[in-house]
């Protein structure tokens, strides 16, 4: 058995903490357990999350609630076609009193950002957010400013209204550690939502992470053992998505472009956090499979053949996972 009792104790403590966080979030958000875990996973891995779902599924409410439970600052940016990069990052403004330009920081200078309907803003705004997400810093005028730590972006997309939207470029999509799909709640969950309509705003949430920082969870996740065979398994999965032209696998014709090495890193990190969620100090192939859909969904560009056969990325990922041997 593993002798690292200290690590297991810490994992159990972290698990208790995460359970408390889930419980607090559950006071305001009914159901959506997968999405809550996805968001927590994104925060712990230091990545950013893209959420796809129709309006009215409590996406904003969820991010707000998580920020509150994490004891973090929260800002929401509604992306519109007339939005400018400066509206996001900030700009230099002139002060008549002193006669000089001073920086005015934008809404990205916070811990948790909700980039609502990100695909409604033009590419230049998306690029500004891209820099913030990738570098953790923003340049205003001649100065570069570090963003808050933790810095977490949850961007949302509406899958049904595509008119007047700007498709996110693959390079930007790749910056998101995961793409989550939010679905409608079940009828039972919807009944509970109705029961809580009047009392939801009165709920006072406990700041669970006041004593236990997110950085500690990050550090803890990095101590979770990943065997060499698991690493090879991750690489095999990502590599299987890049077999276009080799024609040895049936799904290759549905893939235009495969996943980048960022996908391997994201799978690696998310699998570790998943093991943490499962109260384990080592990663199993189950952890890799559990996060594979969310991690790869937006990284695999489908071919026109996949579109013509009405296949989704999830269908292709399922095929990939079914052919890659588990160690």
């Amino acid at each position, binding site marked *: 058995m593993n002798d690292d009792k200290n690590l297991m104790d810490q994992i159990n403590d972290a698990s208790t903490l995460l359970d408390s966080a889930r419980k607090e979030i559950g006071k305001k958000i009914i159901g959506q357990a997968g999405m809550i875990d996805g968001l927590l996973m994104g925060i712990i891995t230091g990545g950013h999350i893209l959420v796809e779902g129709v309006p009215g599924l409590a996406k904003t409410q969820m991010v707000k609630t998580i920020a509150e439970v994490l004891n973090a600052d929260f800002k929401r940016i509604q992306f519109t076609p007339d939005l400018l990069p400066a509206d996001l990052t900030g700009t230099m403004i002139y002060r008549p009193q002193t006669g000089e330009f001073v920086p005015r920081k934008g809404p990205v200078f916070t811990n948790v950002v909700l980039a609502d309907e990100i695909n409604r803003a033009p590419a230049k705004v998306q690029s500004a957010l891209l820099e913030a997400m990738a570098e953790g810093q923003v340049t205003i005028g001649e100065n570069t400013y570090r963003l808050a730590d933790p810095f977490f972006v949850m961007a949302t997309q509406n899958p049904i209204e595509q008119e007047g939207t700007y498709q996110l470029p693959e390079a930007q999509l790749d910056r998101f550690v995961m793409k989550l799909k939010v679905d409608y709640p079940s009828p039972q969950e919807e009944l509970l939502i109705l029961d809580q309509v009047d009392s939801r705003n009165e709920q006072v949430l406990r700041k669970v992470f006041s004593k236990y920082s997110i950085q500690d969870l990050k550090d803890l996740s990095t101590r979770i053992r990943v065997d060499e065979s698991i690493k090879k398994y991750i690489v095999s999965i990502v590599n299987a998505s890049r077999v276009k032209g080799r024609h040895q696998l049936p799904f290759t014709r549905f893939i235009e472009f495969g996943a980048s090495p960022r996908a391997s890193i994201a799978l690696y990190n998310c699998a570790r956090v998943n093991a943490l969620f499962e109260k384990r100090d080592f990663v199993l192939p189950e952890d890799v499979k559990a996060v594979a859909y969310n991690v790869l969904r937006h990284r695999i560009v489908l071919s026109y053949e996949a579109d013509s056969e009405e296949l989704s990325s999830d269908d292709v990922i399922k095929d990939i*996972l079914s052919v890659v041997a588990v160690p």
Partner: protein
Amino acid sequence: MKKGFIFFLLLQAAFLTAADNYQIHNLRFMPPEYYVGDTVEMSFILKTDQVHDFTVPEEFPDPGWLNILSMDIESKGSETEVTIRLIPYYPGTRALPPVDLGGLIVDDLKIFTSTLLNLESSRELEGVQSPLLIPGTRAVGALIVSLLLALPILIVMVYRFIRHRTGEIVKTYKINLPYRQFQRLVRKIRRSMVNMPEKEFYMTFTGGLKKYLSTRFHHDLSSSTTSEIENLLGRSRIHDTLALSLVNLFHRVDRVKFAGDKMLYSDREQLLSEVEEVSEALEEWRKKHADI
């Protein structure tokens, strides 16, 4: 035409015999038409003016072209029915040699023997030949023909039977093949596990076990995780204890493979013994439930 001619000749014969104080009536041949070598039964009614005590001659005349087999005389009041069984060996119309019936010599009997041969061909006497078909030949022939006709059906039936049996044997062989292969793998691992690195041992072990279970549950488990295998076993109809034993094996091996747990040599031996027991139990269960 021919019959009419015979009838005319017979009438002539009957007319002439009347001059010798006897008359021949109702001359009949059985069969009516006969050929060279056929046995013919000739019968007629003999009428005489005087009473005679007719007797069958001790020796029948032998003219060479004819063989008289037997003769029967039956008195019917004033009439006498004579029946002569004979074999003619010469075609055409010929007079029978005189026949002494004991006091009355009948010498104007004629017979007409049909022939298959051209009448213009040689009329040389041929020696008596053995019959073409020995007795029972037709029955044997019919039997042979029947057998020949039934032969394809018999061959098809035998072929089907052999194919069915062979198919069953091959099917049984194939069904049991994965288990035998797995047993061989376990034996191979047991022989070489002393020098086998720990990782290699457990990778080989789970690889073999997954391959074996894949054949038993008709689902490729090579890309399945332990949780997925557990779900599959849960959905199958195997006994819970058996499913749990299999899942526990995978869980224990997972800890060695991925968590870095160390296991002693004895643990390996125990693992192999356990997997042998579990696989044997699974085979027993499979035989009872063929539709696994």
